[in-house]
């Protein structure tokens, strides 16, 4: 598994494109990451919290009524219902080591906000969450949940009033109060060392599932599939298999209404190389270099950029990236609930939709591993409204 170079690049992607005011904080974080990651005691505590508080290891589960030869990594069974908590536990432990006084986070659908609020409560940090004003309206239950956990949610009214603008605002707040504040970024995006650090905290998904596969099936999966917005659940599971060249890696982006429709969130499928939120990667943008508005039925994938390491894996050909539309994801969402007794997150339903297509062409000894990144309780009202509109 590759480390970024000294300047934070995976190949030509990554880097540190931020205002000077944040450089000192990023360098301090990088030093802390290097020191903590080299200490077995740091990882011992991280894994103890994941075991006792989050409920790891998460199960590996065969879901053959939905599609033959399909196995799931059940991140939906984690405390707070998604993979996000793996990362926020790690960053909270770092924040405590650094003597920071509070946590801030951006959130789109609210899952990362809830995961940050949760570790804030557990470790005793005040938490401020920045959330686009439109998302505050769309995700009222998660706003209430964050408040219940003691976090303060700030509605961001600038720009498109969604995740991209919430991220801008979190960067600005961090710049103003950089000495005492730890910015908990929710995906493998942002300036170095965030993409690397978040991957390392999500790598537990890949390491566990590789071991579980070998124990149960005596072989590695043929294919590993994960949905990709910013890309943290995908980087987490890919990290367990990237050094096994025979394992095919598939990232599934939200095509929205179609890759050519202009209403999409597929940064790799429909975007081009640019700089957003501190790193060079692919993003959806205009020819004038303005970041485009995005669309996906799934709020967690509705982001114009993608982590730089995914851009690197695409360019090197190690991973392949495909798009799944809103309609295909919804169909998988319903079928999966009926055939498996599990309501998947709409994000994860994108991965499931592609997995079912892949399974149709599978060879007899193939094993298709999907990262079921979250559960779908949060999406029920939204899905119901979408269906009733049609």
């Amino acid at each position, binding site marked *: 598994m590759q480390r970024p170079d000294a300047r934070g690049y995976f190949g030509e992607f990554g880097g*540190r494109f931020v205002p000077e*005011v944040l450089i000192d904080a990023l360098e301090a974080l990088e030093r802390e990451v290097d020191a903590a990651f080299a200490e077995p005691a740091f990882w011992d505590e991280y894994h103890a919290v994941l075991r006792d508080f989050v409920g790891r290891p998460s199960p590996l589960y065969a879901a053959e009524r939905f599609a033959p030869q399909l196995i799931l990594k059940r991140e939906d069974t984690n405390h707070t219902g998604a993979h996000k908590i793996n990362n926020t536990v790690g960053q909270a432990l770092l924040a405590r080591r650094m003597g920071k006084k509070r946590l801030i986070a951006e959130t789109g659908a609210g899952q990362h906000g809830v995961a940050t609020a949760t570790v804030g409560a557990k470790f005793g940090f005040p938490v401020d969450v920045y959330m686009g004003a439109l998302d505050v309206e769309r995700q009222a239950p998660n706003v209430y949940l964050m408040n219940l956990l003691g976090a303060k949610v700030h509605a961001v009214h*600038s720009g498109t009033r969604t995740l991209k603008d919430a991220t801008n605002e979190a960067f600005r707040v961090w710049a103003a109060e950089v000495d005492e504040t730890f910015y908990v970024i929710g995906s493998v995006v942002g300036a170095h060392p965030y993409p690397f650090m978040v991957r390392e905290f999500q790598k537990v998904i890949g390491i566990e599932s590789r071991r579980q596969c070998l124990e149960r099936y005596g072989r590695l999966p043929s294919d590993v599939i994960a949905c990709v917005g910013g890309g943290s659940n995908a980087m987490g599971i890919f990290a367990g298999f990237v050094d096994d060249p025979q394992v095919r890696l598939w990232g599934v982006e939200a095509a929205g209404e179609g890759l050519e429709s202009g209403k999409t969130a597929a940064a790799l499928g429909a975007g081009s190389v640019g700089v957003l939120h501190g790193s060079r990667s692919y993003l959806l943008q205009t020819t004038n270099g303005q970041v485009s508005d995005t669309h996906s039925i799934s709020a967690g994938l509705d982001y114009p950029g993608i982590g730089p390491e995914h851009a690197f894996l695409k360019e090197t050909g190690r991973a392949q990236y495909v798009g799944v539309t809103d309609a295909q994801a919804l169909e998988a969402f319903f079928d999966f609930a009926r055939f498996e007794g599990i309501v998947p997150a709409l994000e994860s339903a994108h991965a499931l939709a592609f997995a079912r297509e892949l399974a149709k062409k599978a060879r007899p000894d193939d094993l298709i591993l999907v990262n079921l990144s979250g559960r779908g309780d949060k999406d029920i009202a939204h899905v119901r409204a979408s269906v009733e509109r049609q």
Partner: protein
Amino acid sequence: MMEALFERARSDHRAAFVPYVMAGDPDIKTTEAILRELTALGVAAIELGIPYGDPLADGPTIAQAAQRALAGGTTASEVLALVHRHKMNAGAPIVLFTYYNPIYQYGLERFAADAATAGTSGVIVPDIPLEEGAEVARVLGLHGIDMPLLVAPSTTRERAAKIASQSTGFIYVVSRLGVTGAGTTPATQRAREQVAMLRSITDKPLAVGFGVSTAEHVREVASFADGIIIGSALIDAYAGTRGNEAASRVRAFMEPLLGAASRRTETPIP
């Protein structure tokens, strides 16, 4: 290049005044009228923003000005055409202020060439720190364009020395943590310390910005820095107006500040 502007201001016993306006806010014609007015007022240079929808270093005033400019369809090409017209009319020197992505999509080489043809003196890119800046500075430099770098309150002395050696034209001293905006006071004491520290490592001109909004701030900053950058307060002064109305509001706002930038204590004899 730009260093001469600061030299001229110094020999004239004043700090170089560099007002910031957002190109295309609310339309290009208004910006053109404001640039004419600022030239007539005798400012040392004008910082001209190319609008960007995701400005990480800017507070609400400049972010909203960018949104208004983008709503009017302003592009980097139009801004360069504006600079060209302004310079053909003997306008004040222009320093463009632009985030990296619009330049990146324009093509760095092409941007530098077109900016130079238009008569641009400098380009400030707030999301390009020292480590990412070498190539951008090299290409701009080949076209005779300065690239001032920023020093923040959180910048260490060791790092400031590296920034100072790479910065061209002047060094942009950020007065406080956080983003641009007139809402809170500039941390003038911290800026004063930063300037003193920079004086011990560089001879390049030092211009202070972020949060400067009143004649009192200007008088204080002029007492220790070579230049003063004022943006959000100026934009607030003409927001909601257009054309000549905007230009006359700019004049009314700027006149007392320009007086405050003078270091002369006695009234000059005409």
